């Protein structure tokens, strides 16, 4: 069953069409969202996070049409979101910042303290929970962002460039966390790093110029790369470029779907 379904989604930024009649349905698991800069990944994530309104189309999240206020409130309680730039309050500690988001998500007050400690522990920052966010390194701040996104145990988790700034060890740990989260929730990860997709995702969606260029499993994308002689150091990177080029070539699109 799909926990996320968009139909005919169109998003326009001034004169640019960011998403063009997009249809997409995703269920439980970790879904990688790949694509070049300006493909529409962040626009899609922001609509799914309910912070941006589409110009046209229907968005159903967790069985609710988010056009209605009641449905929207219910969805937001069960939604986690890490934006590319999330901003934080300079005087807040990690605990306070994550608790602030728990309050936004209406986590019951009696459960907030435990939920915050659990989320912070899951991202490996338990020893820095009472440190001011402004004193942390870039990678640690990113992990604080991931902690706030999972504090309400979301059924739908949207992560926009979650591994930016993480060192290799942290990225390996984060992929393990993604796989753990994806066992029970629908996780959408927008990234430029195809190796993250190969290691942690159950499905991959490739966007280009506001449209879906490819959908399949990371293994199928890797196979596509092995069969292609395009640029890339790894088969999945070659698969990424092969799928993009096939999508951009008229008449060749059906071959990669």
């Amino acid at each position: 069953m799909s926990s996320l379904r968009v139909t005919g989604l169109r998003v326009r930024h001034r004169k640019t069409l960011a998403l063009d009649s997009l249809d997409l349905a995703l269920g439980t698991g970790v879904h990688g969202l790949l694509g070049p800069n300006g493909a529409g990944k962040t626009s899609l994530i922001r609509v799914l996070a309910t912070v941006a309104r589409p110009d046209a189309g229907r968005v159903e999240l967790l069985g609710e049409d988010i056009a209605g206020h009641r449905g929207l409130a219910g969805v937001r309680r069960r939604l986690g979101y890490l934006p590319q730039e999330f901003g934080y309050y300079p005087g807040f500690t990690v605990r306070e910042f994550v608790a602030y988001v728990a309050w936004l998500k209406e986590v019951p007050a009696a459960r907030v303290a435990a939920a915050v400690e659990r989320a912070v522990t899951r991202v490996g920052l338990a020893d820095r929970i009472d440190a001011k966010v402004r004193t942390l390194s870039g990678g640690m701040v990113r992990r604080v962002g991931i902690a706030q996104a999972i504090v309400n145990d979301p059924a739908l988790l949207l992560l926009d460039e979650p591994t930016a700034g993480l060192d290799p060890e942290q990225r390996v740990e984060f992929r393990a966390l993604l796989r753990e989260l994806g066992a029970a929730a629908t996780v959408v990860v927008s990234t430029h790093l195809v190796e993250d997709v190969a290691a942690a995702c159950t499905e991959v969606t490739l966007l280009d110029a506001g449209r879906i260029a490819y959908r399949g499993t990371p293994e199928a994308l890797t196979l596509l790369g092995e069969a292609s002689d395009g640029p890339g150091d790894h088969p999945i990177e070659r698969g990424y470029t092969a799928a993009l080029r096939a999508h951009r070539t008229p008449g060749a699109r059906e071959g990669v779907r």
Partner: protein
Amino acid sequence: MTTTRGPLLYARSRALPLTLAALAATAAFAVWAAGRLDAYLDPDRRVPIVALAPLLASAVIGTSLYSASDELDRTAVRPWWPRRLAQLAGLAALAALLVTPAVLGHTENFGPPAVIRNTLGCTGVTAAAAVLLGARLSWLPAFVYVTGVYLGSTTAHGRAATVWAWPMQPGSQPGAWVTALTAFAAGAALYAVRGARPEGPRG
């Protein structure tokens, strides 16, 4: 001190403790400056206090409307407008209350009614500016307008002047009250519905 209580975290996220301290300092400065005016030959000159103290208070309120995590705030379960309206109206009422002692005893022209009116009007203009320009620059339009009127309205008379030069009018002038209350209602409604303009990468 660490807390995980939502309303307290919200108050700290909007720098409300600092804002309250700044409003108290503004009020103290206004009282001090009002006393200094007695040194002039005309001891009843209250217009500088009536015009500038509410302006300073509204600037303090405007900067407190800043949200560092606007993108996350937009995913809040509850609608924002009640909290925004409560914050703005509460701070405006408090500012009017704090600044009023600077002009006590001068109720006939430039006393408490004029200060309250100007605090509401300047706060409304500042709130609208926070929506259009962002909270950090929200003080600028009110500052330009009030200082412009302050410098340019000395010879202005007539009905129209009671409207456009509202910060310089006596407290009993109906036209000035209508303008100031309209500015407050419009600014508060705009801010409550839309919030301050994001100032991050998406601003």
